[in-house]
């Protein structure tokens, strides 16, 4: 007889019992496993019988139907959201890519010059948020860095980092009670989409790691946005929900990519070489300082995507719970083309990163020395929290319950083999009872 994992054997027995209704007859086919299988089949049968007992709904489900139709009628009068992840985005012509590259190169020269001269504008821009005069400089700097990053690992890392930036900006704007412009969410979506596109281009060996990283980051971002939504003003609810949905959708698609890399690759394949990956995005039109700007987004009301709790979206690989937990600042970029050109690019990028780090340090010092002129509480918190997210994402990206469950599952797996202690005994799910 073909050797098969015990779980598969149990599944086969369950199917046969469901078909024949005779557990002993089924067990007779597996005499060497009968003693072990029998109690499990008995528990399964008892559970099936218990589950068969479902009372009629007290109000007959009619109230729910009315509520559904009323809600639909309300939503019909509003325009549906148009947000989709990048694989539905239209292609841009190839020429635009070339043109964009030239623009980026020119902007790079300007930015580097500015930084070399004294970096005043770039320093200020680094901590800017939408509506600030220097915010477009910050975005341009990001575009330049992205254009120079090597694909796919470097661009994935950078795209996720920039998505973190957008979340931090949203947090700062909520903290200042300013309206979050739709363009910030749109740009965040571009970052997330770019990370997905780059992951789809990665080698078979590299792709799983990148997808795992996308999952971790988008989960942390979604959770941060969910928490933010709890204290956000009404005017920002739709944008926050939309942003959260983007992160959740990316999280799910990355997870699906782990399960089925080929389909994932095919889905994003048509995006290869897409110009928007490096095209400098249109920054939000700066509005008057301190005021909201940009239209409110079309994101709908309501909850997060499909009501998914963050913790439940964490990929449970059952017995593969050993998470590497790596959260390095950047992946090592692949060096796949012209060596000389890459070295130049890396030098430039390192320069840029050094400048960024310097800017961060200077900002931190400034804030500590002169809190009056420093960023408001929300902005300071945002930077701290983003750093913490980067460093401890594996843990912070999960709600308490999920962490607890992971620990429990790990413990259960260990104890299953070592102590034979009851699994469920250690857990207190669903209310911790």
């Amino acid at each position, binding site marked *: 007889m073909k050797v098969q994992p015990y779980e598969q054997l149990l*599944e086969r027995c369950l199917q046969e019992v469901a078909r024949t209704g005779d557990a002993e007859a089924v067990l007779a086919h597996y005499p060497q496993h009968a003693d072990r299988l029998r109690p499990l089949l008995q528990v399964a049968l008892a559970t099936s019988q218990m589950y068969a007992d479902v009372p009629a709904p007290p109000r007959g489900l009619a109230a729910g*139907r009315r509520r559904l139709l009323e*809600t639909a009628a309300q*939503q019909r009068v509003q325009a549906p959201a148009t947000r989709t992840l990048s694989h539905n985005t239209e292609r841009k012509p190839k020429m635009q890519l070339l043109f964009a590259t030239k623009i980026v190169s020119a902007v790079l020269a300007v930015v580097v010059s500015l930084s070399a001269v004294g970096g005043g504008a770039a320093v200020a821009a680094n901590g800017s948020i939408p509506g600030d005069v220097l915010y477009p400089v910050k975005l341009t700097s990001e575009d330049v860095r992205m254009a120079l990053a090597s694909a796919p690992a470097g661009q994935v890392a950078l795209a996720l980092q920039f998505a973190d930036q957008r979340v931090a900006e949203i947090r700062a704007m909520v903290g200042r009670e300013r309206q979050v412009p739709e363009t910030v969410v749109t740009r965040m979506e571009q970052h997330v989409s770019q990370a997905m596109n780059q992951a789809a281009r990665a080698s078979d060996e590299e792709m799983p790691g990148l997808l795992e990283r996308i999952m971790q980051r988008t989960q942390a971002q979604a959770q941060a946005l969910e928490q933010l939504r709890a204290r956000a003003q009404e005017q920002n609810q739709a944008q926050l929900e939309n942003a959260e949905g983007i992160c959740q959708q990316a999280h799910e698609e990355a997870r699906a990519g782990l399960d089925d890399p080929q389909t994932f690759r095919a889905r994003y394949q048509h995006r290869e070489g897409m110009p928007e990956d490096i095209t400098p995005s249109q920054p939000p039109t700066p509005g008057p300082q301190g005021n909201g700007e940009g239209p409110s987004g079309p994101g709908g009301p309501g909850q997060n995507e*499909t*009501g998914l709790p963050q913790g439940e979206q964490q990929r449970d690989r059952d017995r593969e719970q050993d998470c590497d937990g790596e959260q390095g600042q950047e992946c090592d970029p692949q060096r796949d083309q012209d060596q000389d050109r890459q070295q130049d690019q890396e030098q430039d990028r390192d320069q840029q990163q050094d400048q960024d780090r310097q800017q961060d340090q200077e900002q931190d010092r400034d804030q500590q020395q002169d809190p009056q002129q420093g960023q408001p509480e929300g902005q300071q918190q945002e930077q701290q929290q983003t750093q913490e997210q980067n460093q401890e994402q594996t843990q912070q990206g999960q709600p308490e319950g999920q962490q607890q469950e992971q620990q429990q599952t790990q413990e*259960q797996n260990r104890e299953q083999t070592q102590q034979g202690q009851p699994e*469920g005994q250690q857990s207190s799910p669903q209310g911790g009872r």
Partner: protein
Amino acid sequence: MTNEQTLLERAQAFDEDALGQLYDEYAPPIYAYLYRRVQDAQLAEDLTSEVFVRMLQAIRARRLWKTSFQGWLYRIAHNLVVDHYRKQPATPVLELDEDLVADQKDLDSAVAERLSRQRLRSAIRLLTPEQQQVLALRFGQQLSAPEAGDVIGKSVSAVEALQHRALAALRRILERG
């Protein structure tokens, strides 16, 4: 294009008839699933209503199902259950009356049966949410392993492993008494 596909496309346009038909078809199994998870008919009914409102919101935001619409609904339902228990203050598990259990052999079979089910329900509540989910999907909703995997977001082998762990844990809890 199948009837269901047509129905789903119409539902995405908030077509009232299509939404009504979808509700009529899927609300009963979703209610049954929710009842199996929360063991409270009123709560299961309320959550069923919420599942379909969430469905609308997701449709509006174009966050749609990827494979099975029904699996997608189960997933919404599961997440609502988890959210519900996360927000609820912890409530004690219904304790068994040990005297009654000890004298179970003297009770008539109907009462003994009820006690047995109560004990099983209490034991299931000690499992992890995912373990409870897989039991409800496989043994309550009678989904196949691939169908359950679609709902949970796991491979078939992962579902089988989860199911095995759930049954083994349940057995140990029940044996311990």
